[in-house]
Structure formats: structure tokens, C-alpha cells
């Protein structure tokens, strides 16, 4: 008891252990698992990060079905900062997908949505913070639909290709037949 009392007296005179947050900033330690940043120029659109993301915070929307053009979108408020996407990214070493050491400010009712090109398309298109969740739900639906559309398009293209191939084959066969018939005719015409 006496020892604890002495320790308490010591604590009374020593500097406080806690930081004066929010008056002094609380710095993130080195290697902190923060926001995921993306670089479109390096991306090869392999979709591995989307596939591996546990909460589904990374989504690719297919904006141009014909050319298979994709847009990366990221929801930093759904992200659990688990680092799985960066592990999965084949271009992570070059800086396509990196986990930065800073965190985004929390999203309040009246606060501004953070804007950064490297956060993906979705965040940059949202204006009002209070719409964020609703818009993300809509976006999820849209991304899913776009995926279905792409699948449909691919199927159609495949069918078309098959048909073309078939038509080509038929045409070839027909041409061959005709050629043969012609040769026959010619042979009949010139019995020699």
C-alpha cells in the first residue's frame, strides 16, 4: 500500500502519459495500415483486388461494355484496412495499389467528402456526405448490373463469332462444292 502511495505521488509530479489530443495531433506510427491508394495508369484490370476484398469495398464498374473499359471505385468507409488487396495485387510493387500511412477523416453529416484522384472514381463523384451510403448501395447494384451486361455481351460476341465462323465455313464448303461442280462440268464439256 505504501509503495503504491509513493508511486502515486511520483505520478502526480511526472508528465502526463497521455497525449493532449485533439489539441496536439496524434501521429500515426510508421507502417500504419491506412487508406488504400490506387494508380490507374499502372493497373492491368485483373480484378484480383475486387475478388479478394472481404467487405467488398473495392468494385470495378464496367463503363464501356464493348471495349471492356473498367473504372475502379473504393469505399474507404467500408474498408477494414486488412491489406488483402495489396497482397493480391500483381503490380503492388510498382505502386498500383498501396496502403498509405495516413487515415481519412471520419465522415460526418456535414463534413466534406475527401477528394483525391487516387481514391477511385466513386468518392470523387459524391458531393454530399449524407448521401454517401445510399449512393454506394446504388453503385453496388450498378456495378453488378454492368458485370451481367458484360457477361451477356461476351456471350453474344461468342455466339456471333461462332455464327460467323459457321457462315464462313458454309461459304467455304459451298465455294468448294461449286468449284468441284464446275470442274466436273468442265470435265464433262471437254471429254477429250
Amino acid at each position, binding site marked *: *500500500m505504501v*509503495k*503504491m502511495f509513493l*508511486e*502515486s505521488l511520483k*505520478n502526480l509530479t511526472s508528465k502526463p*502519459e497521455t497525449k493532449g489530443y485533439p489539441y496536439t495531433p496524434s501521429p500515426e*506510427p*510508421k*507502417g*500504419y*495500415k491506412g487508406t488504400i491508394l490506387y494508380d490507374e495508369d499502372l493497373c492491368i484490370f485483373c480484378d484480383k483486388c475486387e475478388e*479478394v476484398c*472481404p467487405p467488398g469495398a473495392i468494385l470495378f464498374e464496367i463503363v464501356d461494355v464493348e471495349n471492356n473499359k473498367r473504372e475502379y471505385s473504393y469505399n474507404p468507409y467500408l474498408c*477494414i*484496412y*486488412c*491489406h*488483402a488487396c495489396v*497482397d493480391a495485387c500483381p503490380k503492388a510493387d510498382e505502386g498500383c495499389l498501396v*496502403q498509405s500511412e495516413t487515415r481519412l477523416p471520419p465522415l460526418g453529416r456535414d463534413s466534406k467528402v475527401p477528394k483525391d484522384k487516387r481514391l477511385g472514381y466513386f468518392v470523387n463523384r459524391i458531393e454530399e456526405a449524407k448521401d454517401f451510403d445510399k449512393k454506394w448501395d446504388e453503385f453496388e447494384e450498378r456495378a453488378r448490373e454492368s458485370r451481367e451486361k458484360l457477361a451477356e455481351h461476351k456471350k453474344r460476341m461468342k455466339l456471333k463469332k461462332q455464327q460467323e465462323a459457321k457462315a464462313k465455313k458454309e461459304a467455304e464448303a459451298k465455294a468448294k462444292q461449286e468449284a468441284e461442280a464446275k470442274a466436273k462440268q468442265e470435265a464433262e464439256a471437254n471429254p477429250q
Partner: protein
Amino acid sequence: MGNKITVVFGSQHIAIPEPVSFVFQTENEIITDVAVDVGYVHRGIEQAAVTKFKFNNVQYLLARVCGFCSITHASAYIHGVEKLLGVETNKKIDYLRTLVVELDRIHSHMLANGHVAEVCGYENLFMQTIKYREISTEILEIITGNRIQYDYYTIGGVSRDLTLENEKMIRTRLKELREHVLKLMEFFETDYTLGLKTKGVGVVTYEMAKKYNTAGPIARASGLKTDARAEFDFLPYEELGYKMQIRTEGDVWARNMVRFDEVLNSIDICLNVLDGLGEGDIQVKVKGRPKGETFIRVEAPRGECFYYVKGNGTKVMERVRVRVPTYANVPVLKELFVGSKYSDAQAIVLSFDPCLSCTAR
């Protein structure tokens, strides 16, 4: 004889911020009967693990079963899946995993002990314990990048390596922590008023511990030699200097002291890990999908954690069963109250360090 009163402990109680509720029937101050309710914090994690998540994502879900033993849940699942996939990890991965698991144990044990001191009315000591606990969480933050949800385990490896600079820092910090823990142990051991509240209170005898199949520090404080770290070899504990910590008193105080003993042992293990950490990859190649079934027992800070993992060769698991340590300790806790004083109930509950969000999952 005397007044019969029903006292409700929880589910909103200042001592324990979890939804457990005990309804005590008391006669004067002595508890004569008790009913337990673990509360409705069931989140359907077992179902989500077999429906919504692919097998290589389930560890992130299971890590969120509990804040304190998050690494244990992830580790148990990953050890199981690695067995099913036939993955052999190298020494470096095993060592790094052990380091994080033991640091997790240190911070959980320190909090549990501080919490007991707090409910005994000794908030001063609580603050002191939490102050020193901060060292372990800081180390964890530097190794894994997060304070609570580490997400350090990946299938076939760990998510990041230890730099030389960090290693040096961790070594000095751990040695510092050991000094502090020894000091705290002295306070717990010699303090007269804390002794009144903890010594001889809530005694789990050796026979009781065996009869009710208790686990973790609660069993070891009663002299029951059970520890999944000694019984299972998922991590190389033996070569890292693990020693089972046993006390025989079985009271609240002994449970605290077992936790402190284990903290000291864990610090030794961590230092041995840093000494023996060699070179090597931190990720081995993993192929295929899990098929078959396996049983895993790992030691969480609160006791042994049991997992049953079954895969069927598809992307989604067939069954993931989680049995958390608190689950093993609730039956004996219920028996323990009968005959003890109501004023001791808080200290008894907190000395068990219950985690109800784990229990209900």
C-alpha cells in the same frame, strides 16, 4: 434467515461493459441462487463464414469475433486451412506468428488484471496497469500496423516482415515492460487492501476445475495443468522457452498472478523469437482449395479456443465451428457464486475475464 432479495447484475453494469446478466437470489449478503443469461449478441458469424465469404477471406471475418483475441481466432482458422491444404510454413513465419500471438496475450492479460483492480475499488492500480499495457499495444501497432485488429495472419504466411530498426526498438521496449510488470506484481502481491478483496475470494478448487472442464488461466490458477500451447504444436512453443504457469490457490488473486506469470513468460518467448528470427520468406505458395475436416485447439488469452473446420473442395467452407474459451468457463462461474458474498461478485466475474461477444458469436 434474513431478507431475501433478488439482485440483478447486468446486463447494463458499470463493472463489465458486456451484455451478460446474472440474476442473484441473495439472503442478506450471501448469494443462494444464480441464473445466467449471455445476452443477445449473436451475430451469425458461423453462418456468414459458410455463406458470404470465400475460404481465403474467412480469417478477416473471424478476427472480428472478438477484439482482444482477434489474432487467436484468425490463427486457429488459418492453422486449420493450412492443414487441409497441406501448406508447410517455414521457421520465420512460425516465429513471427508466435511473436504477435504472445504480444496479444500480454495486452489482454494486463487489461484483465487492471480491470480486476478497478472493480475492487483500486482505480489507481488500474490506471497504472493500463499505462504499462500501452507498451505492448504500441509494439503491436508497429509490427502489424494496427492496435486491435491486426490481420497479421495470411494463409501460408504473415502480412509483413519485421525491420531491423523495429526489432531493436521492440527489444528495449519489452525489457522495459518486464521491469514494469515486476513492479505491478509487487503491488498486487503485497497490497493489503487489494488482498482483502481478492485473496480467498471465489475459490475454484482443483476438483471443481476438473469437474467443470475449465480452461485457461482459471484452470491453471487452480493447479489444473491444461494449456493448448503445451498440448498442441501449431507454433514452436517448446523451443521458445514456454513454461506452464501454475498456482494452486484458485482464488481471484491467484488468477491475477497466473496472468502476470504468463505475461513474464510471454515476454521471454518474444525475446527468444527476436533472438532466433532468421532469414526466410514471409509467404509460402498456397494452391488448391480446402477439402476434408480438421480439429484445432489454440490457446487464447482467456483459455483454449477450439475450432472445427470442414471444407468440401469449393470456394466456400462447409462448416466452421467456433468454441471460445469463455464458453468453457461459464459453467464453473455459475457454480462459484453460490455461497459467496454479493460484494465479491464483480471481482469474481472480472477475474474470469469473460468475453460474451465471443460466447454468443
